[in-house]
């Protein structure tokens, strides 16, 4: 009973408090007006965190209960929670990051007049993500999924003063929507074939009711939704533009939680995926392409947040790659560590942006002495990102690469070539990730200070902070503490893998420190070293200059935005214009035409009545003639 209430409260409390927060008046209520909104937001995240901690500590078997809420013929929709240890760990990560973001936002958005709806929407989003994590039923999962998409749209477009924000929000919404169509179809297919939407039932029944081909089709449809939400190729184009949202949102949604939701769904449905080598192959190829695409694009960006966004795309490629080679535990472990270090990086980046007043790295530089706390946070975060031992990222990335290497032997559920593809892409990615991480660190914190010397104008920087007079300095307390708190798991979470309890909960393999870790470490050293060497030979110059002609291509994300525009946006717009034309010219014209033709007919008849005398005489006689002829012919015929 207690577990039922706590399980439901896990997502219920943040949602309810968030909805209550929406009732607060928006607008600039001043400092005192923000207190209730901040209180509701922080309280929601804190209560959820306490709930998770309690459930982790107090329960020893997975929580699973459900109650039926709707019935469509033979199909039942149930409402319930299913919280195994894996789900609880993910929920823990979500609530920790959410709490950190809520606290951080109080400081970051201290002069934003629309803080109250923002905090409420973050709360609702947290609840929706927790619903996805704890859902027992595919329909409930879909509900949480969609609410997350909605909140993401609202939050990306939060700052109305930016011209890019509404467009980025719509782009995010539409691109993920395209994926969600496939997601819905996949869920429908699985649910109908299994006879029920409960995940346990689907896992048990769907394989027996579907052929391998049918199962593959359903799983590919679900992968469409995963690709959309988790920003995998080809539906990844929304994530870099979504950086128009406030930085805490980027930390919460686009680093730690929503983009990980897709990975989590595949994790939950993995027994089905394991039966379909086709789906795993597609996932593997998608993962490899995304991995390299994100990493290469990150090397050429000038915008600090965009580097992190493309890095997110790339790291989720690692997670989906791990899933593709049949190691869901490794994917989940990387999800947890990524949540920690990416949220850390984004929040720390918020501090840098707040201090300098711009997003662009070309306007930063030499900030190490001015922002020491932020600098060390970046060191920890970037080290974890690159996979520097003993930080968290090293262990989780190691797991992924080892799993991929094992899969090349062809024993797992995925074909052997998928293992090769993922493994090679992963290794290459290690080098490129190290390169761009080093570049970011050097460009932002070392070298000459560009922010004071060059004439800069504000690009798009969120929260429109006025650049503070005086030297840049570390952010205030409310923004610093969440960063420092997040630095702890970013550093130490990897070592948790040695704990047997954690390992068995996730079904992880024990980390092996053997010869196979040498190769990634070498590649890391290669990447970081080359970036450092470029910097060393030409200090202050952007190492990305070494990319030469490729730089614009990488910076534009391989122009996939343009490809999408050509292939999808323009035909859809043309179709919409054509439909509008049809609606106006054909449908409306038919309706109006019925009226106009009737009145014209009446007008004609009225004019006929007003015919002059001779014309009327002609008409009468002609009519008589016709009648006579008809009568004569009829009479002759009969």
């Amino acid at each position, binding site marked *: 009973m207690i577990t039922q209430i706590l399980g439901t409260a896990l997502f219920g409390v943040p949602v309810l408090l968030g909805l209550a927060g929406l009732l607060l008046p928006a607008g600039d209520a001043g400092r005192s007006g923000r207190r209730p909104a901040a209180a509701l937001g922080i309280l929601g995240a804190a209560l959820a965190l306490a709930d998770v901690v309690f459930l982790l500590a107090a329960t020893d078997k997975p929580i699973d209960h459900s109650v039926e809420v709707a019935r469509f013929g033979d199909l039942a929709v149930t409402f319930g929670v299913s919280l195994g240890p894996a789900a609880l760990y993910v929920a823990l990560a979500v609530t920790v990051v959410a709490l950190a973001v809520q606290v951080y936002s109080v400081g970051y958005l201290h002069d934003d007049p629309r803080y109250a709806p923002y905090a409420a929407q973050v709360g609702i989003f947290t609840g929706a993500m927790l619903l996805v994590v704890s859902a027992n039923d595919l329909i409930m999962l879909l509900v949480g999924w969609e609410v997350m998409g909605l909140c993401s749209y609202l939050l990306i477009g939060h700052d109305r003063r930016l011209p890019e924000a509404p467009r980025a929000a719509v782009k995010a919404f539409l691109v993920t929507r395209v994926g969600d169509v496939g997601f819905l179809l996949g869920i429908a297919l699985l649910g109908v074939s299994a006879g029920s939407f409960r995940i346990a039932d689907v896992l048990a029944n769907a394989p027996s009711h579907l052929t391998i081909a049918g199962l593959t089709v359903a799983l590919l449809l679900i992968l469409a939704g995963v690709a959309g939400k988790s920003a995998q190729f080809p539906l990844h184009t929304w994530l870099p533009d979504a950086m128009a949202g406030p930085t805490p949102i980027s930390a919460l949604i686009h680093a730690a939680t929503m983009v990980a939701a897709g990975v989590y769904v595949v994790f939950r449905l993995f027994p089905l995926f394991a039966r379909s080598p086709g789906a795993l192959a597609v996932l593997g190829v998608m993962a490899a392409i995304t991995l390299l695409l994100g990493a290469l694009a990150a090397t050429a960006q000038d915008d600090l947040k965009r580097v992190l966004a493309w890095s997110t795309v790339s790291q989720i490629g690692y997670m989906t790659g791990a899933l593709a080679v049949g190691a869901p535990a490794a994917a989940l472990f990387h999800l947890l560590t990524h949540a920690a270090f990416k949220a850390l990086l984004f929040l720390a980046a918020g501090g840098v942006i707040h201090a300098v007043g711009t997003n662009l790295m070309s306007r930063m530089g030499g900030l190490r002495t001015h922002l020491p706390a932020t600098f060390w946070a970046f060191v920890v975060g970037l080290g974890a990102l690159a996979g520097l031992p003993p930080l968290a990222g090293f262990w989780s990335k190691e797991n992924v690469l080892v799993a991929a290497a094992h899969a090349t032997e062809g024993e797992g559920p995925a074909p052997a070539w998928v293992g090769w593809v993922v493994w090679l892409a992963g290794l290459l990615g290690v080098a490129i990730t190290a390169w761009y991480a080093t570049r970011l660190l050097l460009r932002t914190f070392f070298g000459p200070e560009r922010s004071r010397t060059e004439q800069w104008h504000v690009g798009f920087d969120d929260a429109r902070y006025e650049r503070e007079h005086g030297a840049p300095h570390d952010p205030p307390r409310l923004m610093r503490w969440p960063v420092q708190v997040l630095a702890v798991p970013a550093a130490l979470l990897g070592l948790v893998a040695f704990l047997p309890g954690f390992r068995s909960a996730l079904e992880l393999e024990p980390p092996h420190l053997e010869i196979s870790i040498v190769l990634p470490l070498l590649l890391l050293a290669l990447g970081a070293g080359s970036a450092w060497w470029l910097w060393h030979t030409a200090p202050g110059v952007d190492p990305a200059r070494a990319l030469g002609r490729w730089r614009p291509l990488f910076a534009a994300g391989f122009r996939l935005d343009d490809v999408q525009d050509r292939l999808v946006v323009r035909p859809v717009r043309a179709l919409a214009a054509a439909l509008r034309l049809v609606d106006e010219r054909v449908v409306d014209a038919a309706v109006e035409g019925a009226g106009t033709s009737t009145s014209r007919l009446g007008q004609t008849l009225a004019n006929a009545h007003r015919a002059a005398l001779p014309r009327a005489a*002609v008409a009468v*006689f002609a009519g*008589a003639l016709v009648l*006579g*002829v008809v009568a004569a012919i009829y009479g002759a015929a009969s």
Partner: protein
Amino acid sequence: MTVADVLLLALGAVAVGSGAAVVTSDHLVRSGLYLVVSLGAMAGLYLVLGAELVAWVQVLVYVGAVVVLLLFAVMLTRAPIGPSPDLDRPAWPALIVGGGVGLGLAALLADAFRWTLYDRPEPGTTERMGTQIFGQWVLPFEVLSILLLSALVGAIVLSRPDIGARTGEEA
């Protein structure tokens, strides 16, 4: 081909010919005079067919009164004596309809009666016609008298010159 046929043909030709001249002439007064010829030929036709009373009534009333009335109206409306060019409307609707009616009816009647020979009946003298009128047709006769009376009154009323002024005062 009896004598009656020859007479019928000749008088019919005259009637049709002058009828055509009535509707095609561009002299207004000449149309009226052609109408006289046509109506006279018609009276001749009636005579041949044995309707004596009708023939002479035709001459008296139609030729003597109606056409005279028409010519008076021609005079009173200041119609030009010479040819007038704008006397006609476009020809083709009239040709189609008129030609259709005339030729259609002719074809119908010719097809109906072919070349049947009928005996000449006894003529419709005044005595006989009068017996019919005041015997079998007395009611229509009385109604027609009333109609004539009303037409007479109506014509007088309609042609009063001060009607316009009275309507003008009321308006």
